[in-house]
Structure formats: structure tokens, C-alpha cells
């Protein structure tokens, strides 16, 4: 398995620069199965039934006391990490770029589904981690930055925000909508398919080059976040695992059209994202980073 990965890596390196232009008119087998929508223009996206997922409290209901103040700060950090959590962030992302709708959206790793589950055993760290330690990991890898101390004001505010969002959730139970969505692979993912799908389904928002688009006014952060390149998450991030990325993409992307790609298509795009360049894995040495394939390839 390792050998295969290394070979794949070498082939990928040698094929850089050989990528040809795609002809949009050419019929390709991967796209030959059109996504049929019902001719009467009814919705093509599975509609969520009311009550299927937990509904967190509304922003207008944040209490007007000291706790409320802390929650508001936490929300600011979560929504605009580029401004309020600046000293810890190394790239151009905000927490909401991956935890959509301010950490509320089911199947986008919502905070309310996570809060009651920690402390929890995690394979990545091979130990039981607390909620704070989990957030630290997102800072270190997803935001390619440095972890705030567990007793730093930023961390306290973030935990307060998550605590407020999860008002009334049962403790220790994995709620529906937690994490992303499970997927099953039926064939080996292909980067060629991934590239075609990326160009047809994602490029209008994330850019042809995948580097995203900044806001047009001077506010920090991205309107459409980068999927790779120096301002994106690093190689150790959960999103750099082909499977995790595919799970996220399947449930949430293209924005507003979650669950319209098939499992295999999501994996194709996940693999295509994985082969792109992004910041190095901070846990490894430079040499390993340059000569070894990044972690998280498809198993």
C-alpha cells in the first residue's frame, strides 16, 4: 500500500506540466450519467424534514449578561477568525468556512453535535482529548497556525459559544448530523474525473486555480475560500484526508446543493484536492514533507 502511494506520488510529480486543456464538449463517461431533475422544476436536493436535526438557539437570543458577552466574542472568533483570532491563524480561513453557517449546519461538523461528546478518544492523537484540545487541533492544522492555550481568552470564548449553541443537547450521544456524512467507495477514485468535476462544479466559486477569491472590499478572509495553495489548510488537516474531504463535499458542496454528487464523484474530487500543493505538515521534518506523499491518501 505504502509503495503504491509513493509510486503514485512520483507519477504525479512527473506529470506536472503535462495537464492538458479540457474540452467541455467532449462526452466523458464519468459525466455521461446526467443528474436528472424533475422536469417540473421541483427541487433536486433532498429536503430535510423539520425536526430531523437539532435546532440551536437563535443569535438574537444570546443573553444580555457576562455569559452572553463571552458567547458573542466566541461567535466573532468563529465567524471571523481572520480578525478576532488573528494571532493564532496562519492561513486565510475562518472556522465557518468548514463548519458552515456559523457552526450550525448539520452534516458540516456542527458544534452542537460535538460539544456533548467530548472528552473522547481520538485515533489521530491516540489519547482521550477534551473539547479544547480538539479545537487546538483545528487551529494547528485546519488553520495552519498555532494552538491557543486551553485557558486563553480566545479558547474560553469559543467554548462558551459552543456551550451556548448546544443548549439542551444530550451528553455522550452522537446526534444525527454530527460530523459529515458516511460514504462508500465502489471504484478507485480518479484524479482525471476529479479535475473534470472540479472544473464543472466548483471552479465558478473556488476559482479555476483553486485559490479562491478574496472579498472585493478590504475585509480580511475569503468570499470563496481556497481549496489548496499557501492560504489553505495544511497537509495534516482532517480536510486533507481524501475520505474526510469527500464526506464534506458530498454533504455540503456545491454550496446549497449538498448530496447531489455521488459518493464516487466526491472521492474523485477529494483525491484531486489531495494531490495539490498546500502548506507542509507541521509534525514532520522538511525532508519528509518534500519526499514523502502527504498523509491522508485513500486507503
Amino acid at each position, binding site marked *: 500500500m505504502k509503495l503504491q502511494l509513493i509510486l503514485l506520488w512520483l507519477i504525479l510529480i512527473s506529470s506536472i506540466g503535462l495537464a492538458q486543456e479540457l474540452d467541455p464538449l467532449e462526452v466523458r463517461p464519468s459525466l455521461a450519467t446526467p443528474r436528472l431533475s424533475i422536469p417540473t422544476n421541483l427541487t433536486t436536493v433532498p429536503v430535510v424534514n*423539520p425536526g430531523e436535526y437539532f435546532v440551536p438557539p437563535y443569535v438574537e437570543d444570546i443573553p444580555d449578561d457576562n455569559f452572553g458577552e463571552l458567547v458573542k466574542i466566541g461567535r466573532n472568533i468563529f465567524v471571523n477568525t481572520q480578525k478576532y483570532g488573528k494571532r493564532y491563524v496562519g492561513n486565510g480561513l475562518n472556522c465557518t468556512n468548514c463548519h458552515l453557517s456559523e457552526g450550525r449546519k448539520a452534516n458540516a461538523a456542527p458544534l452542537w453535535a460535538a460539544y456533548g461528546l467530548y472528552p473522547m478518544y481520538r485515533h489521530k492523537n491516540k489519547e482521550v482529548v477534551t473539547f479544547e484540545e480538539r479545537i487546538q487541533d483545528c487551529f494547528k492544522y485546519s488553520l495552519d497556525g498555532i494552538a491557543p492555550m486551553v485557558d486563553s481568552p480566545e479558547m474560553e470564548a469559543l467554548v462558551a459559544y459552543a456551550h451556548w449553541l448546544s443548549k439542551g443537547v444530550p451528553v455522550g450521544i452522537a446526534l444525527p448530523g454530527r460530523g459529515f456524512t458516511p460514504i462508500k467507495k465502489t471504484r478507485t477514485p480518479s484524479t482525471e474525473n476529479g479535475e473534470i468535476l472540479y472544473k464543472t462544479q466548483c471552479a465558478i466559486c473556488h476559482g479555476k486555480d483553486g485559490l479562491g477569491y478574496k472579498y472585493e472590499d478590504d475585509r480580511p478572509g475569503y468570499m470563496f475560500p481556497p481549496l489548496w495553495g499557501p492560504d489553505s489548510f495544511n497537509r495534516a488537516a482532517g480536510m486533507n484526508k481524501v475520505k474526510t474531504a469527500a464526506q464534506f463535499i458530498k454533504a455540503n458542496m456545491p454550496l446549497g446543493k449538498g448530496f447531489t454528487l455521488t459518493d464516487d464523484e466526491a472521492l474523485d474530487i477529494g483525491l484531486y484536492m489531495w494531490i495539490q500543493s498546500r502548506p507542509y505538515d507541521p509534525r514532520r521534518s522538511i525532508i519528509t514533507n518534500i519526499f514523502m506523499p502527504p498523509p491522508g491518501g485513500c486507503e
Partner: protein
Amino acid sequence: MKKLPKILLIITLIGGSLVYWIQNQPPPIDEAARQAGEQLATKGRDNIPACTTCHGSKGEGNFAANFPRLAGLHPDYIIKQLQDYARDPLQTGVKLEPIARDYSKTPRIYSDLTVYTPGTRKDPIMNNIAKALTPTDRKNLATYFSTLPFQATPQPVDFQTLERGADLALRGKPEYGLPSCDSCHGPDGKGFGPYFPPLAGQPPQYLIDQINKWQTGKRDNDSLALMQNIANQLTDGDKMNAAAYFSNRSLIVNWK
């Protein structure tokens, strides 16, 4: 002789920064196109009425009659809309331009082939006007309207409507998987790039009408059917709250 490398270095640095500066200049306005566009927009031609009679003398739209504003929209967006108004999917015998297949679109099935069109936009007024325009006209008009400055007049809205509208615009309906309007239409609904038109500064009833058109299938020209999926999940109350919220936003557009 010793100074030469230094001088070379300085020259390359200056040259490099000059090239960088020139490449990063916004492209100049095509003045000829703008004037031709202004002529057509204000005076009209044979069977084309002057756009300004409906869309306002400065392209600012008409709140009372629900004519959208055109001032400050992205030129490519205006061109695309005019093309979509002019396209008739059920007309036979026309030569279709080669278009990229967009499989997320409603397939239109002819007797012998299935076509995935880039979508159409039905409107009794604009369809006829757009069909009379040549591609050059579209470009000229787009250049003219996109370079007009625009300033929105925020409309008064009651507190509760505003709060609900803001919730939709900033957070969407996460429990139904609906993203916020602003995550596509830009912060404060200012619009973003050629694909995402502004909502601020448009007459509220016009916005509601457009969403209704998506729901009834009269409009399906949005890229990747993005807006269609959003529109299909909006209730009548949502439409009104969101439209009121965006009409309450202030907005100043100036061509850079």
C-alpha cells in the same frame, strides 16, 4: 565594473515592479463602447425602446414599478442576462451555439436529442427587447451600465422583519441545509463577480418576483442551478423578509 551587478539588480527590481504594477491596473473603460451604449440606452433605436425609460435615467431602477437597477452591475452579468432573455429553447431550426453541457440543468428533450441549455429567462417585456439586440449592442450596453455610479436609498423596514431577514441573509436556514444569501451574493448583498448579482439596491418586489419565477420554472438561467435550489426552499415569508432586509442595506458603487 564592480557596480554593474548592483545596477543590474536595481534595474530588474524596478522593471519587475513596473510590470507588476501595469499588470495589476484595472483594464481601462472601452470609451467607444461606453458611448455607443449610452446612445442606445438613452435614445433607443428603431424597434428598441430606450432602456432608461424603465430602468431609470441613471440606471438606478424604478422602485414603484419594480424595474431592476442596472447601474454598477457586473458587465458580464448584464451580457449573460440579455443573452438568456433572447434565447428561446423551444424555437426550432435555430443554430445552437456550441455550449458546454451543464448536466445539472433540466434536460429539454427533443424528438431525437436531449439538450442541456444554459437556461432561459422568460419575461414578456425583456424577451422582445433582448431579441432585437446584436452581440455588439449587448457589450456596449453592458459597458455603459456597469460604469454608472449608484447609491442605494435604504428603505425603512420594521424591526421584526429586519431581524428575520438578517437571519436569512447571514445564516440561512442551517437546519434545512440552506446557506445564507450573503455567502453567494456577497457581504450585505453587494454582489460578487460576474456570477453573483447584487441584491441590495434592487426593488424588493422585483427580488420576490425573481424567486417566484425560479419556483415556477420561468427562470432557470443560473449557473449550476445554484439559485434554483435555494429558491425552491424559500417560503413566501422568507422571500418578503429577505427582500425587505436587502432593500434596507446601504450601498455605494463607484467604478474603480
